[in-house]
């Protein structure tokens, strides 16, 4: 019967010995060929192969850049001519600060540094000091938001808004120090800060939507 069968033992496998090295006779070549074969083909774009997530993240950053450029152009061509009590908005600054606070200190810090340098070179910034002011204030707002509050619309808006007002106030102080402005113009700078905060409300939704491309990759 089949149950009475004893289990078969597997036959021990023979170990394969490594092939013996054959001794080759060295032959002296008298003629050396000049032909050299092509090297292995290397595709320079091969290391840049992106995963789907990486593509989405690249798209997100391209959209951020697009928003910043759009804000800069709108500010220079339209908004700079629309004044309320001599004050106008600062759309590019509001976009940069919102993106920084939204992205968090790890990524946002690098972004605000690069963005503020480009902002200065675009000719729309009041001076080179805006690089330092924007970076320091943007970072401070981001770190403050991450330490004190959870990520929410109101906390992001509040911190970015405070940074915008602080930026305008700092500009006033720098201008006063350099003799470019006079003390009684402080309300005008503060009003510019307030208008910049007001401009953040529609901008927030745009930047928030862009921030959702590629999912949340930030961590706190």
């Amino acid at each position, binding site marked *: 019967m089949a149950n009475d069968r004893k289990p078969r033992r597997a036959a021990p496998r023979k170990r394969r010995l490594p092939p013996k090295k054959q001794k080759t006779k060295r032959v002296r070549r008298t003629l050396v060929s000049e032909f050299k074969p092509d090297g292995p083909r290397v595709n320079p774009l091969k290391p840049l192969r992106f995963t789907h997530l990486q593509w989405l993240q690249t798209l997100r950053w391209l959209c951020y850049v697009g928003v910043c*450029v759009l804000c*800069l*152009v*709108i*500010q*220079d*061509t*339209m*908004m*700079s*001519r629309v004044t309320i009590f*001599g004050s*106008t*908005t*600062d759309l590019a600054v509001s976009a940069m600060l919102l993106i920084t606070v939204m992205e968090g*200190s*790890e990524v946002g*810090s*690098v972004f605000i*540094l690069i963005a*503020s*340098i*480009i902002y*200065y*070179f*675009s*000719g*729309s*910034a*009041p*001076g*080179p*000091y805006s*690089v*330092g002011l924007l*970076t*320091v204030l943007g*970072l401070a707002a981001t*770190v403050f938001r*991450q*330490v004190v509050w959870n990520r929410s619309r109101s906390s992001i808006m509040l911190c970015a808004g405070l940074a915008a007002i602080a930026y305008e106030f700092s*500009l006033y102080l720098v*201008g006063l120090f350099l003799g*470019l*402005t*006079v003390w*009684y*113009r402080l309300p*005008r*700078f503060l009003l*510019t800060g307030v208008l910049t905060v007001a401009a953040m409300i529609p901008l927030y939704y745009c930047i928030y939507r862009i921030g959702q491309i590629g999912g949340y990759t930030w961590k706190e």
Partner: protein
Amino acid sequence: MRNLFNTKLKIIVILAVLITAVLSVMSGLTNRSIPELAIQGILAPFRAAGTALTKTAERYYSYMFRYEALEAENEALKASIAQMMDTARQSDATIRENARLRKTIGLTEIRESYDLADAYIIGWSSTDWSNTFTINRGSNVGIEPNMVAITENGEVVGLVTQVGTNFAVVKTVLDSTLEISATIATSGYNGMVSGGYIDGNEKYLQMDYLPSSSIIRNNDQVVTSGSTVYPRGLILGYVVDAGFKETGVAKYAVLEPAAEISSLEQIFILTNFHTE
């Protein structure tokens, strides 16, 4: 409390401070940095497109909602032109008389001929203390720094401060850092004209260093007195107010700029001028 202010952030802050310092030094040394020219060159077409869109929208808005106002303005301009033509007819006789008198006393006539490059404004600065705008022409049509920008009527708009291939930045006469030597055309008093921002008149110009004995009247025309940068006789503005400086040893005059800076669309850059 989490320690978020880590080494990376410290490095970023130090970098920002260093970059600010370097850029401050660089901006003092030169106004033609390569990154600045490159980025502004890239942005110039976008700014031009934005301005074109804004102008189109303004035109439609004016057509739809300001038709009656434009009609009234048109009528007023027609009346103004008729008056000016009458003045021109009268001045013809004066010109003939002037030429006759010059010939009599042997006075040579000084004429200035200009080479102009036209340009459209594509962007305005929005900082509080500087008053500049960007135009859509640059070194590709021979524009260089320190060239004068004027309107089609010979009214001074400003001075070119920065030039790229396809853009140039013009500092307007309203900017308080721009100083122009000027003369009151009717009385011949000389002074320096600059933007009145610091003195609280940001939409006006201020003419300083006028003699305390000078008699200044309203609507006196102020023109450039001539230099290597500004040719003689370009209109700067009209006197609207005058007074003594705090020191009491000199007078000042407040001028309304001849060019309507805020509503400008097209300007001309004086690329060359010859005095004959």
